[in-house]
Each structure stands twice: as structure tokens, then as C-alpha cells.
């Protein structure tokens, strides 16, 4: 089985080979090697100015690399741009919306722009509207909508043509917490059939919906690994009354006391938050809070970009 963590893998949907980019004489991205298959979601992390957006723009074919190549299904994006770009859906940092059109008019144009056959446009637009939950604003003029709605329309235009590779630059920007949670589900769903790259500042988003995480720092890929498995089964539990021993709870493999009423617990394989919550309630200590523990990812991220992240 090919190594999923190998930056240059077999048959990737998207592949960056030694990609570098200079802007205004400054090296913004340096010799980046990265591969991504269909069915995979890659989270791209980095502090402001780390080179995330520049990397995504090169992946989308909007910006040409100064060195190296971007390949889509093995084809060089800049040698066969017209063919390759039809397989890419891209949401830039600022959603590229035409404010004077209605949501449907705009999405129809995007579908045709990305070569969806005329007969399939209506179905493709409906699917995107449904996925992004845009039914309420389908006939509204985009210029009159709030930032959250605009962001979702931006995501819809990136997926309307069912591209092989979906590139989302800060997709959660401007979304309220409920919408952000829905976005996680959407990205997870897209990741089943597409290769998805998501750039974000929100570490829990990466833990919740990405298979792998890449951390860029000053244009250099400093970390590329599966999202720490431990992060998926670790929780912070808060109780109403002091809990004597969290390791005694059903499904808990290990536990660390943080203070009198808070424990960091790691579940056994197959354990879920639901089972943990039931065990805490059954213990009589009273469940006051339950949250995923992002410490492993956070530790990695801060270890790489700690100084600047703290300063920011």
C-alpha cells in the first residue's frame, strides 16, 4: 500500500512537485512537494503570511509557480491549463461573487463556465444549492446577502461542477458557529469523492474534518502527517462535582486530572463521545462539559510557528 504520508505518492489527483514562488523579490513558497488523492481532505495550516493562500492560488492555476510544477492527474496544470482547470473548484480568500446577480443566476454561470453541459446545469446548481443549504436565498440578489451567505455561495461555486480537486481558502471565514459546524460536515462529505484542500486558522476544524494536516511556515512545508489519531479519541471532560477517578469510566483507556473538576481522557478504540458522556452521567459526578482535546495538533502547530503565533 502506498504511503499516504509520502508527499509524492502514486496516482495523486493533485500533485505539487518542488513548487516555489517568489513575489516582489521575496520567496513566499519554497520547494513544496505535496500529493493528494481523491477521497482525502488535507488541512493547510500556517500563521498569516506563511504562504497558504499563495500555495492555494498555484494549486488553482490562478498563479503560476516560479519553479516546479503543479500536476492534476499527472498533467501539468500550466502546460494544459484549459483541460486541467476544469477539474478544479476554487474558493479564494474573498469569494468571487457577482453582487448584481441572484444566487441561481450566478451559480448557473459558474456551472457553464466550468463546462457543465447545458442540459446538466439545472441539476448541478440544485445539488450545490442543497449541499450548501442555500435554498432560502436562491432568488435573492447576492449583493444584499450577509457575509455568511456569501461565503456559502462561494463554496457552492467551487463545487457546482463536481471537480476532482476542491480548494477552499479559509472557507469558515464569516460563518457563524452553526454554519461553521455544518461546513465541517460538508467538507467531510466532499472528501469522500473529491480531493479537498482546506486552508484554515481554526485547529478544531482540521481535527474534525481533515485526514492529513500540512503546516507551512515561512513558505516551507514543515509538517505533513495524518491528523493525530490521538486527537480523534481524546476529550476534556468537565464535571459538576469532583470525579474521583476518570479511568474507572466505561470506555476510558487513560485519564489525566487537570484540576478538581476537569479531566483529559483518552478513549479505547471504538469509543465515542456519546459513550463517554453516558459514563460520566452514570458516575453521578454530573456532566458539565465535554470537548475534543486538540492538544496534539496544537502542540505540533505551536512547536513550529509558536513564536509568531504567540506574537500575533
Amino acid at each position, binding site marked *: 500500500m502506498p504511503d499516504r504520508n509520502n508527499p509524492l505518492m502514486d496516482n495523486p489527483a493533485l500533485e505539487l512537485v518542488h513548487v516555489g514562488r517568489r*513575489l516582489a523579490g521575496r520567496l513566499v513558497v519554497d520547494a513544496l512537494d505535496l500529493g493528494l488523492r481523491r477521497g482525502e481532505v488535507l488541512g493547510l495550516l500556517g500563521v498569516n503570511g506563511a504562504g497558504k493562500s499563495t500555495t492555494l*492560488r498555484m494549486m*488553482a*492555476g*490562478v*498563479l*503560476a509557480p516560479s519553479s516546479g510544477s503543479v500536476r492534476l492527474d499527472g498533467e501539468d496544470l500550466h502546460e494544459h*491549463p*484549459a*483541460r*486541467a*482547470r*476544469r477539474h*478544479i473548484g*476554487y474558493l*479564494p*480568500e*474573498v469569494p*468571487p*461573487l*457577482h*453582487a*448584481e*446577480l441572484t444566487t441561481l*443566476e450566478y451559480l448557473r*454561470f*459558474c456551472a*457553464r*463556465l*466550468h*463546462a457543465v453541459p447545458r442540459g446538466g446545469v439545472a441539476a448541478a446548481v440544485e445539488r450545490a444549492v442543497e449541499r450548501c443549504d442555500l435554498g432560502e436565498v436562491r432568488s435573492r440578489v447576492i449583493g444584499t446577502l450577509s457575509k455568511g451567505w456569501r461565503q456559502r455561495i462561494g463554496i457552492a*461555486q467551487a463545487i457546482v461542477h463536481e471537480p476532482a480537486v476542491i480548494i477552499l481558502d479559509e472557507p469558515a471565514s464569516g460563518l457563524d458557529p452553526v454554519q461553521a459546524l455544518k461546513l465541517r460536515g460538508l467538507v467531510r462529505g466532499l472528501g469522500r469523492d473529491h480531493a479537498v484542500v482546506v486552508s484554515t486558522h481554526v485547529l478544531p476544524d482540521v481535527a474534525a474534518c481533515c485526514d492529513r494536516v500540512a503546516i507551512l511556515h515561512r513558505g516551507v512545508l514543515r509538517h505533513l502527517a495524518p491528523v493525530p489519531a490521538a486527537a480523534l479519541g481524546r476529550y476534556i471532560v468537565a464535571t459538576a462535582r469532583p470525579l474521583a477517578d476518570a479511568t474507572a469510566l466505561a470506555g476510558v483507556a487513560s485519564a489525566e486530572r487537570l484540576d478538581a473538576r476537569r479531566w483529559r481522557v483518552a478513549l479505547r478504540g471504538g469509543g465515542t463521545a456519546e459513550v463517554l458522556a453516558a459514563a460520566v452521567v452514570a458516575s453521578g459526578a454530573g456532566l458539565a462539559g465535554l470537548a475534543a482535546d486538540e492538544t496534539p495538533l496544537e502542540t505540533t502547530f505551536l512547536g513550529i510557528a509558536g513564536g509568531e503565533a504567540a506574537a500575533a
Partner: protein
Amino acid sequence: MSDLLLVARHEWRRLAMQPFAWSLAALLMALMAWQFLLGLQGFLDVAPRLGGLADAPGATDLIAIPLLRSLSNLLLLLVPLVTMRSFAGERRAGTLPLLLASGLGNGRIVLGKFTGALGYVLALVALVLLMPLALGLGSTPDYGKLAAAFAGVALFAAALTAIGVLCSAWAAQPALAAAAALAAGTLLAIVDAGARLEGIHNDSINYLALGTHLEPFFRGIVASVDIVYFLLVTGVALVLAARRLDALRTRPD
């Protein structure tokens, strides 16, 4: 071809949703209608005296051609206002990546934008042309000369539109794009003014001027040298605009 029309139709739809495009059209129509009526009144005043002249100018020469000549002067100002948003507006609004990330090549994007803007400008020219054509209700206009004048104004508009699209691709701000297109169009229009004052009418400097090639159309002369000139200006401007999009992908500013 369908990609090109897709972008062009999208431009028309966006223009149709903007009060700016309607206001511009209304203003132009009002100005042209006023001038047309003034021309018509002037013609009616002198018409009795023209009857005694041999080979006297008719309504086409005294009303329609001055109207279209005046329209061509207004186009120098109007076209930059139409084209300024083509690319500069997209860049300012952050919407250009939608086109750049699509499968359309730079040439098709530029041609689509050009066709969209030119379609709007030609619709305005056609509407203005309806005024002299209405003279057919009470007289017999020289339709051949009118057709030649329309063709000349259309080619002139195409050249100005291509220059406007080029300026819009170069400038990051729509106002700057409009100013640059106005300057470039005006420069091309008056480049031979000094030479003409000196009595030079057939030099290479005259060949460069837009007016040199537009004027024959107003006299009913359709010469291939004039058509080639306008097509050349249009083609060169559009190629440069496509090159500019290439540069935006490699050297964004």
C-alpha cells in the same frame, strides 16, 4: 466560440442589472435626440433655399452624418466608461480568480469581455441610428451612405472598446482604466492634428489617426485600408490584453 459567448452574455446580464449602464444609455440618447432635433430644425430652415442648387446636400448629409460624427466624438468618452470595469473592476472586487481559475484561456476571456462591452456599445450606436433612419418616413435618406457611416462608427467603436479592455487589464483601478483609455483614444484621434494644421494630409502620421480612417466612411467610401486599420488596432489591443492576463498569472501586483 460558446465559451466566448458565455462570457459576453454574462457581461450583458451584469450590465443590464446595473443602473449605471441604463443611465449612460439614457444620457446618450437624450444628447443625441437633442442634437438630431436641432439638426432637423436647421435642415428645415435651409431646405427651401437648397431646392435651387444643383447637387444640393440632402437630409443624410445635413442631419444624419453630423449626428453620427458627433456620436463618434462622444464614443471617445463613453466607451472607456463601459470598459473600465471589464478587468479592473473584477480585480478590485476580487472576482477575477473566478475567470482565471476556469478552463477558459486568457484569449477567450479577453474576447468574451470585448464582445460583451462591444455588444452594449453597438446597441447604443444602433439606437442612435434609428433617429436618422426615421427620416425615411418623410424623405428618402441615402441608405448606402448611412450603412457606410454605421459600419465606420462600428469599427471605430470596436477599436475604442479593444483599447478600453486593454487599459482595464493593465490598470488595477477602474477609474484609472477609464482615464488611460480616454487618453489613449483621444491621442489616437488627434495624433495628426498638428500635421493637418501644417497642411500635411497624406503622411504616416495621418495614417495613425483614427479620424483619417473614419472620415471616408462618413463620405460613403468603404475602403479596405480603413477597415484593416481598425481591425489592426482592435487585434493588437486584444492580444496585448491577453498578454496582460498572462502576466497577472505570473507577476501579480
